[in-house]
């Protein structure tokens, strides 16, 4: 624009209210949580202060770091499992299924997102219990009973309930968009099927896959339902620690410390992943 800058009311109409809204109802809460982490609790009442006592207290405790590493580990593990388990199915849907079949499959996989996660978790509880459906079925063929609830296994099943459909959808969509002629070209040049996956399909789907894995990680990392109801809080994850801390003596400042540590971790993971996902391959311009 030439001349003095004029105020463009039209443009601001679409921009300013959002900025204000998000500042008040998104940045506000997040920053306030940071502030809370420096407050102190006296007689079950939160008092404004600026003290590092909560940080000191939480970060010097073994149990915080145990939870931290455990959560990081189990969330990464479940994201990895989700990605691996999803891959053959996504590959089949992307390359072996008709467009129509694929659309239906993706649509079906969206359904779980609109059923109550709590209810699904509760269903798993009944299915996986020692006297539950699965053990009963295994019993008919003379196996078990296996202990599946209140274990890492239970927690991971819960996480997968949340993340597996997403992983399959994202992988399928990503791979379905890979230019099929490239694959044919590779096969034509004598590339073996598995080598084709490794050398052609995966590099071309890198961004989609990293984003999918990231989402799986984020969902598992922040979920408290699965580790609580299916994992029996055996080794409480950070979300459980947050709940426990808020329940106990109004210790919101300490819960805030845990929450901030989680957010910092998530953002670090997310930015690293996104940077990896969108990094240009070597040798290309720009």
């Amino acid at each position: 624009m030439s001349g003095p800058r004029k105020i463009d009311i039209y443009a601001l109409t679409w921009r300013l209210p959002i900025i204000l809204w998000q500042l008040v109802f998104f940045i506000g809460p997040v920053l306030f949580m940071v502030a809370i982490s420096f407050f102190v609790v006296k007689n079950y009442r939160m008092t404004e202060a600026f003290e590092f006592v909560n940080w000191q207290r939480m970060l010097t405790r073994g149990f915080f770091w145990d939870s931290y590493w455990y959560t990081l580990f189990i969330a990464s593990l479940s994201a990895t499992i989700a990605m691996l388990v999803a891959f053959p199915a996504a590959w089949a849907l992307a390359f072996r299924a008709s467009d129509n079949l694929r659309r239906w499959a993706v649509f079906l996989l969206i359904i779980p997102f609109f059923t109550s996660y709590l209810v699904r978790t509760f269903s798993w509880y009944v299915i996986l219990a020692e006297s539950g459906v699965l053990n009963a079925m295994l019993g008919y063929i003379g196996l078990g009973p296996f202990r599946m609830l209140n274990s890492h296994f239970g927690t991971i099943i819960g996480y997968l309930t949340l993340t597996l459909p997403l992983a399959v959808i994202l992988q399928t969509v990503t791979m379905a968009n890979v230019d099929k002629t490239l694959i044919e070209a590779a096969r034509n040049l004598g590339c073996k099927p598995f080598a084709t996956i490794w050398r052609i399909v995966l590099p071309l789907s890198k961004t989609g896959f990293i984003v999918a894995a990231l989402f799986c990680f984020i969902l598992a990392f922040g979920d408290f339902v699965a580790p609580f109801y299916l994992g029996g809080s055996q080794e409480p994850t950070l979300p459980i620690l947050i709940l426990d801390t808020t329940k106990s003596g109004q210790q919101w400042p300490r819960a805030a410390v845990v929450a901030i540590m989680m957010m910092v971790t998530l953002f670090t993971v997310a930015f690293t992943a996104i940077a990896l996902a969108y990094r240009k391959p070597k040798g290309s311009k720009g």
Partner: protein
Amino acid sequence: MTTKPKTISKQLLRRDVLRIGGGAALSMPFVSRAWAQTTEINMLAWYGHGEPDMVGAFEEANNVKFVPKYYAGGDNMLALIAQSPPGTYDIILSDGEFVQQLNAADYIEPLDANDYPFDDMLHEDFTKFPGHWDGDTLFSMILRGGHLGVSYNTTAMSAEEASSYEGFWKPELQGKVGHFDWHLPSLGMMSLKNGNGAGLWDLSDDQWQAVQDTTMSLRSQVGGFFDYGGTFNGLKNGEMMAMCGIGDWITGVLERDGAPVASVIPKEGGIQFTESYCIGKGSSKADLVKSFIQYMMSPEGQVKSAQMVAYPGFCVTKAGRALLQEVDPAEAARSHQIEGMPNEPIALINEGRIHYRDIPQQQTLEDWNDFWSEYKNA
């Protein structure tokens, strides 16, 4: 099922169904109750206290509607009050030991002792319950109690084994011992196991360390940490064969449902949970709440409390107990609320085997909670 006592709740339910099927015809049920011109009473309580079996009759008689918010654990209760504007809760059902905290934080209104049947208490401790009085001012009315001990699946443990907290360490129970996910009752039990007896809450540093050590030694037995619902399901499904930190309040419900579970007060002693009503500070419906408390302290109210669907608790008034024995002898017998029965609650208190749940005296609640987190993580 036919042998089971008809609980008031079932009758209520049937009446509701009849009413809907009949007079109200096909109109939506919420029209009949939730959206009618009623006064709403906000209640903060443990799960189940605001359900129709407890409050339904009072609601109908007084054209009020209880809006419950449920918590789990006294710290949780305090947190919920702190996060709400003053005057949010009209009635608070608190654990006995937390009344003092409520009062200290100025969350509750004083009561008039003359409004309540203090001359009819089953035990003198209930008239002057610790923390309920500040000098001569009453702040909370005791409603009911229950005893916590060893809860177990009778197919996995004998009554003999359950008669000591040692039972939790039974090798066959590895991975089958559950905790109710709140530090106070579980750690209290560990303190009792260490022989601290009446001083179970008043632990010196050494004793506290010893309690922690004992608790930690149980960790390999533990199969999970559960809320109310999880505890329920765990015991019912056979996922957990013994539970630490609960008592008849949970096994009682399962027993009524026919599950092979039981609770006993072990030889090291048991813990009593006590539930008391308070009127929330700044409540505009204090009078209604007062009459509700009076109603719950009446014999009918006491029977309702004893029969509460979510979890039972024993009567604290003589008249209440008498009425229970009359209208529901099976429940009275099941919960040993008949004079002269073994494990009769009042007798247990008199024998000194029961200790009222309290908060740690020499440590802070946070110390206990931190240890609890550490324990869960171990």
